[in-house]
């Protein structure tokens, strides 16, 4: 992001930017940047807090009135916490009792059937959440319905390559989009109850460790790592399991006192 500021300023356009990773901005030295202490994925702060969001933007835009640079300033406030039980220390619980996943050694057919049942259970909550947001949803990247998404992703479990439902896009990239759709659907459904929204860390823990969908993707991971399609292998290497989940079992090294 910081490099884009450099290019635009060379083209005669004044820029100001949000910085999420301060060491990167310190190295690249864009003309004007406001470092914010927010989670990756939330450059303007927190959902549903328009006044806070505008405070962040005013602070970033104010850097345009400086006389010289590069300028890198720190925004002084943390973002408001997500509303809901987690904010009160009660712990977040998915509104739907999904039941235990079938297990990592389940047959592909059993996993696919369990996934279809789980999706069916979540559908009323997904619909409720979508309705509450005026019809807005982040589902729909692959251009398939949710049942077709589940069927398409699980069809890779046996190591075969299914027909490509979007021939204009490489099969591995369609698989990636379908997996993102699956996660978007689950996250929207599980966050549908007003006042009980969870943040990224809680939903990631839930999705990857308590749902059949997460378990199915864990089973899929070694399968696609053996694919003869390099694009599908690349998905397995870099864009399937989050670093937080890959490192989940590793104990943290004690932090040295500073």
């Amino acid at each position, binding site marked *: *992001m*910081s*490099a*884009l500021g450099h290019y*635009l*300023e*060379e*083209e005669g*356009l*004044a*820029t100001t*930017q*949000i910085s*999420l*990773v301060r*060491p*990167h901005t310190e*190295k*690249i*030295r*864009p*003309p004007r940047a406001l470092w914010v202490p*927010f*989670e*990756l*994925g939330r*450059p*303007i702060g*927190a*959902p549903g807090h*328009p006044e806070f*969001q505008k405070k962040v933007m*005013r602070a970033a*835009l*104010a850097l*345009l009135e400086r006389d*010289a*640079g590069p300028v890198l300033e720190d925004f002084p406030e943390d973002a408001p916490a997500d509303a809901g039980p987690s904010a009160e220390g009660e712990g977040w619980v998915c509104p739907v009792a999904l039941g235990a996943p079938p297990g990592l050694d389940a047959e592909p057919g059993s996993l696919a059937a369990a996934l279809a049942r789980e999706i069916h259970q979540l559908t009323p909550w997904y619909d409720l959440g979508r309705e509450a*947001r*005026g019809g807005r949803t*982040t589902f*729909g*990247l692959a251009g398939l319905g949710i049942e077709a998404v589940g069927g398409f992703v699980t069809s890779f479990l046996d190591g075969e390559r299914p027909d490509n439902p979007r021939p*204009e*896009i490489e099969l591995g990239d369609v698989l990636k*989009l379908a997996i*993102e759709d699956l*996660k978007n659907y689950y*996250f929207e459904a599980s*966050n549908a109850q007003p006042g009980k*929204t969870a*943040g*990224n860390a809680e939903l990631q823990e839930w999705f990857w460790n308590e749902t059949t969908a997460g378990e199915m993707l864990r089973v899929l991971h070694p399968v696609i790592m053996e694919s003869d399609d390099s694009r599908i292998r690349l998905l397995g290497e*870099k*864009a*399937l399991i989050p*670093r937080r989940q890959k*490192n989940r079992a*590793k104990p*943290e090294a004690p932090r040295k006192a500073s």
Partner: protein
Amino acid sequence: MVRMTDLPDYEREYLLEVPCPTFDSDPWVAGPPVAERRVAIISTAGLQRREDRPFVRDDADYRVFHKDTDSADIVMSHVSVNFDRTGFQQDLNVVFPVERLKELEAEGAIGSVADYHYSFMGSTTPDDMEPLVREIAGYLREDCVDAVLLAPV
């Protein structure tokens, strides 16, 4: 929070090892007060309109949004799995604050909101994006933009 001291060791080490370009110059463009400026947003969140071609790994190109594009038509096809999407799912403005920009215009805090805004996908090498960023500069000038707010993800 993206304070280096708050991150687990593996995440801090990963972020500190991400290659960053460096430059020999510090370009700087002066301008009028913010209250007189026309502002555009460029995001690197891999945003697209629902009917656009999705971003896929190593895409260096961009997508365009009219300022009145319905938020229900904007989705995210960034390839990374290592950042929060729940904020974006609840509120587009956490990533792409065009509604907030309109409010700042109404309050007189900025001059106006540009007609068009843009998104790249930030996991792509900056060198690959450079020619397209310079291309967008021309479109921004045609739109009379004199301030760009860059938002990462």
